[in-house]
């Protein structure tokens, strides 16, 4: 059984605003072809103020799809259309105190229904650019389509790079086989484009060859030997700080994409203290986020470092 929050359960067992809306003047109908879920969102919009007076939903979907729809109607009631358009799927998930990573697409469906309904009201045609695949990385909720697109757009060849660009694989590491399969598939399809797609904000960082583990999947005919583990050169203190900063900078775009951020507060021996910001604060993935940063820093520096929240700085120092 899924680990649903009490809020999700409440909105599933006692859905708000379920059913058709008789005098609706904006209707959005969307579905997710991947999982078969579908949602009709009906709004009653005041033509004068463009304020949403009433909202209702009809959902064909699982518990979290119904809960997300219910939450959405509660969030948008009373808002103007422009205010409503600011709502992200993360807002819907936050309203429900979080959704399991596999169920985040339910909140995406809610946001899309809202966009479609508003487009319908304004007489516009809503087109969707969102496509999702099977969940690969459960720690960071990254699906196969996103990974594939990023791999293709940025010419990625290793699991480490995929983690760097998408966070996928940066947590418990059990999805590395799945990521390797995607890398091999893209490679077999003629490799990568090396042209940054508009959607993929590629962090400006040069990626070193892998320093441990997984050989790069090769193009079908040639099978070069795995890159030998190069001994990381000894860094000066200044170089080390710069390197840490560079790694953190490379991670920030992916966190920002989820409305979060991170800053370095202090580097003390092998402890790196950071402050998580925005949506990262109190996020249930906080631990996994820190773990991902830690793994990447350790790889880049060629030494084991610990990434700790700034709140632990005093305690860590006292224990030395």
């Amino acid at each position, binding site marked *: 059984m899924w680990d649903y929050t009490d809020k999700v359960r409440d909105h599933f067992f006692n859905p708000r605003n379920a059913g058709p809306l008789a005098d609706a003047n904006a209707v959005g109908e*969307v579905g997710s*072809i991947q999982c078969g879920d579908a949602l009709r969102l009906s709004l009653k919009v005041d033509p004068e103020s463009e304020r949403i007076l009433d909202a209702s939903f009809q959902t*064909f979907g699982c518990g979290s799809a119904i809960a997300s729809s219910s939450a959405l109607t509660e969030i948008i009631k009373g808002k103007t259309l422009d205010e409503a358009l600011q709502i992200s799927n993360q807002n819907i998930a936050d309203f429900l105190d979080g959704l399991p990573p596999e169920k985040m697409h339910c909140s995406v469906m809610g946001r899309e229904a809202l966009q479609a309904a508003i487009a319908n009201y304004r007489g516009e045609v809503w087109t969707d650019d969102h496509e999702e695949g099977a969940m690969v990385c459960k720690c960071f909720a990254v699906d196969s389509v996103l990974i594939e697109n990023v791999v293709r757009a940025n010419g990625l060849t290793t699991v480490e790079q995929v983690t760097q660009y998408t966070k996928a694989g940066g947590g418990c590491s059990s999805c590395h086989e799945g990521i390797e399969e995607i890398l091999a598939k893209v490679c077999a399809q003629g490799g990568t484009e090396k042209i940054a797609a508009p959607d993929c904000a590629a962090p400006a960082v040069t990626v070193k060859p892998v320093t441990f583990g997984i050989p790069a999947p090769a193009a079908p005919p040639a099978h070069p030997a795995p890159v030998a583990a190069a001994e990381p050169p000894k860094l000066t203190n200044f170089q080390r700080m710069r390197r840490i900063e560079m790694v953190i900078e490379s991670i920030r775009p992916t966190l920002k994409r989820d409305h979060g951020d991170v800053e370095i507060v202090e580097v003390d021996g092998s402890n790196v203290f950071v402050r998580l910001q925005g949506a990262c604060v109190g996020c249930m993935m906080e631990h996994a986020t820190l773990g991902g940063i830690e793994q990447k820093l350790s790889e880049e520096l060629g030494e084991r470092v610990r990434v700790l929240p700034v709140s632990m700085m005093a305690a860590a120092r006292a224990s030395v």
Partner: protein
Amino acid sequence: MSDAPIYLDNNATTACDPAVVEAMLPFFTEQFGNPSSMHSFGDRVGHAIKTARAQVQALIGAEFDSEIIFNSCGTESDTTAILSALKAQPERNQIITTAVEHPAILSLCDYLEKEGYIIRRLGVDKRGRIDIDEYRSLLNDRVAIVSVMWANNESGTIFPVEAMAELARARGIMFHTDAVQAVGKVPIDLKNSCIDLLSLSGHKLHAPKGIGVLYLRRNTRFRPLLRGGHQERGRRAGTENSASIVGLGKAAELALAHLPVENGEVKRLRDKLEKSILAAVPHCFATGDVKNRLPNTSSIAFEYVEGESILLLLNKLGIAASSGSACTSGSLEPSHVMRAMGIPYTAAHGAIRFSLSRYNTEEEIDRVIAAVPPIIERLRKMSPYWGENGPLDKAFAPKYA
């Protein structure tokens, strides 16, 4: 009316029979010996395992007790069977299976396909049946093994494995069947069949989890999965899970004794449940080959509603069932079994499997019959595919992402 929990998910796992637990208990305490040891501690355990082997042998009608190999689970049995066939016959590189196997077979075959093996997956018709002529046409000298489940876990549909094994034997091809759902529910007589390997799992027949059996017909070429010890005559190394083996033996004895109950009372209750729900709820249907399926299984597809929502509402009433819906499994796709049968998304997502056991009572079934229709009605009221009193005339056609 009582609100005690009702367990109708016996194809997922079963409760341990109290007699099984009782038989096992001494093997956690005074009977802790290693059956390989020379002293009396080990000797008694060795005898108990011998008894259990005979009990399992009787349940599946094996000719020799040495054909029973105890291991850890159905998945291990499946994996051992397939990999053994490939290792023992390196000149053969094809596997014939079906599109509706358990993931224990399908995932392994997907993996082997990447390694270069050729996998032939038999499709099924809308009732879940395979085409025997298509099967016949796939048999050739490059096939290492055929692996076809005895009965499907989702729909309960029974495959003609005995006839298929005969056809394989005639072409000199090994035949394996994943029978974890069938053992204890349908009579099995391996000595009079052409089946070479069979997987069974303890926890599907009221034995504990973590114990399984691979039946290996004498003189079948075999390569062990685990090497390292002489246990199970060197075919499955690792110190015996003696308590669970004893438990499985007891469970096998009980299952054999209760076969008439499974095909009598359990089947009657299943039929009553299914008939009553189909009569009370519009726009739903039983999936699978209803005339030829496990006596305990009913899979009903409720159109225009989604399975996980049904399960959550059933669970609130203390009723445990399972669903072929994507949303319960962590993958986004609906059940591969429902898709293979060509059942449309809007029905496949609402497929609910009720699987009974000999512990279910008439009173429980009556409670479920009363509980289901209001749940479906409630969810349909929320469904965009559903109008006031039935499915919308104008099909709901959402913009798909």
